[in-house]
């Protein structure tokens, strides 16, 4: 594919940025200054950035640009200083879906570097907060040509806008003994299954999945995604008492008491006189702490699965939210499990998009309609594990025995008030 990629060479004028070349941490300024010899638009970028430093002011305006057939993935920027820096007139970022877990062969990583250099400024960010590979510095034409060449080579463009966003996951089973499910496989499965929604903004607002193999949450899912899928287990954790003894021998009893027993949130571990431990498994909330500390002796249980939460996001609009439990446990191993997950997600999206307001993230939607109504809408029964404690406010709007609402009929009768024995009709079914 032919591509025009010549930029005006300009003297670097970066006295303030130059002060970021000293110090122990690697400097992007040093790197980009050297690289500007190859791609002069990078020199213009640095010069503009230096003006930002001087005036504490930003010179980028956002705009919209799409690759044919796609409704997102290009973060389009126009410089307000285009007169001075002509090659920043259009200077867009292209989001590229990363390999799940951010693993690369050098062959593939080099290819990203080569393609981004060929078509644009040759700046890569590994990786964006959203998980994607970010390639910076393409004008309108280059954005199209870089996207085509990426896609010809099997890469795909990431999400933006009111759409499913690029997923991100922890390293999981590829290199972690804690992983309770295959995060990379599920990330690829969800991305591929829902790729239409990732590329075409059809939702009321953005939707992010992030996947962590265990409650340690190395993928930052609980805070930063609308639907964290968190590995966990059912039943007893695995305990190797011989290795417990070894650990205690090496570290001492006081260490185990201070750093394991008293740090357990439900105080469900006890130390026995023979230097073994006992765990009251029904009280373990799978926080991972004891396993993290004594990871040779303790392991997640064998019956593994996931807890699905919903509603995490940053401040806009109602304030920061943390995800909340929606599905306390489900298995996520077989193809049927994956199908069940897919169906569940579709149901959630349908209810949210039919009833959500413009720019309403799912956490805000749940806060507005109430968790109970949300559960009704997605067909899930209330479960005490979804709350820290039941309500303490007596302002309850009972559906039962209340006068029929306008436009609706009174249908449900509460079992406690229903003095009649169960009807034979129900019993016969």
């Amino acid at each position: 594919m032919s591509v025009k990629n010549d930029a005006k060479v300009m003297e670097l004028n970066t006295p303030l940025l130059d002060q970021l070349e000293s110090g122990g941490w690697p400097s992007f300024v040093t790197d980009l200054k050297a690289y500007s010899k190859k791609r002069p638009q990078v020199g213009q970028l640095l010069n503009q950035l230096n003006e930002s430093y001087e005036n504490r002011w930003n010179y980028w305006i956002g705009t919209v640009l799409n690759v044919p057939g796609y409704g997102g993935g290009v973060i389009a920027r126009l410089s307000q200083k285009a007169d001075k820096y002509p090659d920043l007139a259009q200077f867009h970022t292209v989001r590229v879906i990363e390999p799940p877990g951010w693993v690369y062969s050098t062959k593939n990583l080099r290819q990203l570097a080569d393609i981004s250099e060929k078509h644009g400024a040759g700046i890569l960010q590994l990786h964006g907060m959203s998980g994607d590979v970010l390639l910076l510095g393409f004008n309108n034409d280059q954005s199209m040509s870089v996207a085509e060449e990426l896609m010809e080579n099997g890469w795909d463009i990431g999400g933006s806008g009111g759409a499913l966003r690029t997923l991100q996951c922890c390293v999981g089973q590829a290199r972690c003994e804690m992983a309770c499910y295959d995060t990379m496989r599920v990330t690829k499965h969800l991305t591929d299954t829902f790729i239409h929604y990732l590329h075409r903004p059809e939702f009321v607002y953005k939707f992010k999945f992030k996947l962590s193999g265990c409650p340690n949450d190395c993928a930052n899912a609980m805070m930063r995604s609308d639907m964290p899928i968190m590995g966990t287990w059912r039943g007893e954790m695995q305990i190797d008492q011989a290795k417990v003894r070894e650990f205690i021998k090496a570290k001492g009893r006081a260490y185990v008491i201070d750093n394991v027993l008293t740090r357990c949130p439900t105080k469900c571990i006890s130390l026995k006189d023979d230097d073994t431990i006992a765990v009251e498994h029904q009280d373990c909330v799978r926080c991972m702490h004891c396993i993290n500390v004594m990871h040779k002796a303790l392991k997640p249980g064998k019956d593994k699965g996931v807890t699905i939460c919903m509603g995490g996001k940053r401040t806009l609009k109602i304030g920061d939210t943390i995800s909340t439990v929606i599905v306390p446990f489900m298995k996520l191993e077989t193809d049927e499990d994956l199908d069940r997950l897919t169906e569940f997600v579709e149901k959630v999206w349908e209810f949210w998009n039919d009833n959500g307001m413009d720019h309403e993230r799912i956490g805000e939607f749940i806060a507005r309609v109430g968790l109970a109504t949300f559960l009704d809408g997605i067909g899930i029964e209330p479960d005490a594990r979804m709350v820290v404690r039941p309500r303490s406010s007596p302002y309850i709007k009972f559906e039962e025995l209340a006068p029929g609402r306008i436009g609706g009929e009174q249908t449900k009768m509460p079992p406690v008030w229903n003095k009649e024995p169960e009807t034979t009709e129900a019993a016969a079914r």
Partner: protein
Amino acid sequence: MSETKLAPRDQGAPDYKVNLHPVMLKNYGKWDYHERVRPGVLVHVAENGDKIWTIRAGSPRTLSADKVREICAVADKYCKGFLRFTTRANVEFLVDNEAAIQPLIAEVEGKLKFPVGGTGPSVSNVAHTQGWMHCNLPGSDAAGSVKALLDELIDDFKNERLPNRVHISSSCCQINCSSHADISVIVQHHHPPRINHGNMQICELPKVVAICPAAAIRPAVVNGHESVEVVKEKCMYCGACHGQCPSMEIRDAETDTLSIWVGGKTSNARTPPTLMKLAVWGLPNNPPRWPEVGQAVRTILEAYKKGGKPYERVGEWIERIGWQRFFEVTGFPFTRYHIDDSPEALSTFNRSTMVRI
């Protein structure tokens, strides 16, 4: 116009298997345990005894194509051509041969000039956003302020000498990207947006009215044109409207400041995930090196290093010693702005007589 052939669409996520180090592929799902060999170096041991060493190095995240090639050259030489990146933008070099560790570290530190560290109880790389380099909304820079901050904290990246890991994030606007962290730097504004009425017709008015968390924006006719007005008493200077509409300019080079928040965590270990809380506000937005921010973060880190017990994250340490002590040991003033006035506020008050006197 020449006919362009469209490449295949909707291909999805790349195959991860072809991108995995052979030892990781072979032992996928069969890892037994890991150990921290030294700061920045982990060894994961598989059930069959296979080992893979991870050498973690801090990267500036924004990389030229040439720098990416240099990174690849190191991975080709020592790692059979495989590497990985972490959630916090560290690079992980993977080796299956213990003898390669020392020369690899020497090359990463000597040639790439990337510090090795970020494992265990250390300060990891700072998660950040675009800032003045490429965002349309920022009140401050990201990569540059983070570079200056990490220069200040680099010894705690290279060593494992803190009570637990410390995640830091930096955000160049108040409301959008970035994440909760043990310590977080956020831009803040000090007055309502200035409205460019002449420009206002370009976008949909209802959207900018609806976006305001304080319901402070209402449609108004200004000079005979449809526009909006901001009820100053209601506005809380958040900048949500600015993200929606470029005609609502919230930033101000003279009055924008930075604030530092503490005690956020996403992991479920010991305590549930927690939001971060305001520690100090009103720090100057001071490029190119933001020394006041670096100093304040260092103050928090030193107090935590001194007072935290093993495994306590910053937030857990503060909850144990109490916020009054936190303000004492850091020397930051506790002010009226530290008292929450959001809908969550009641639950943040001390509704007891439990007071350290």
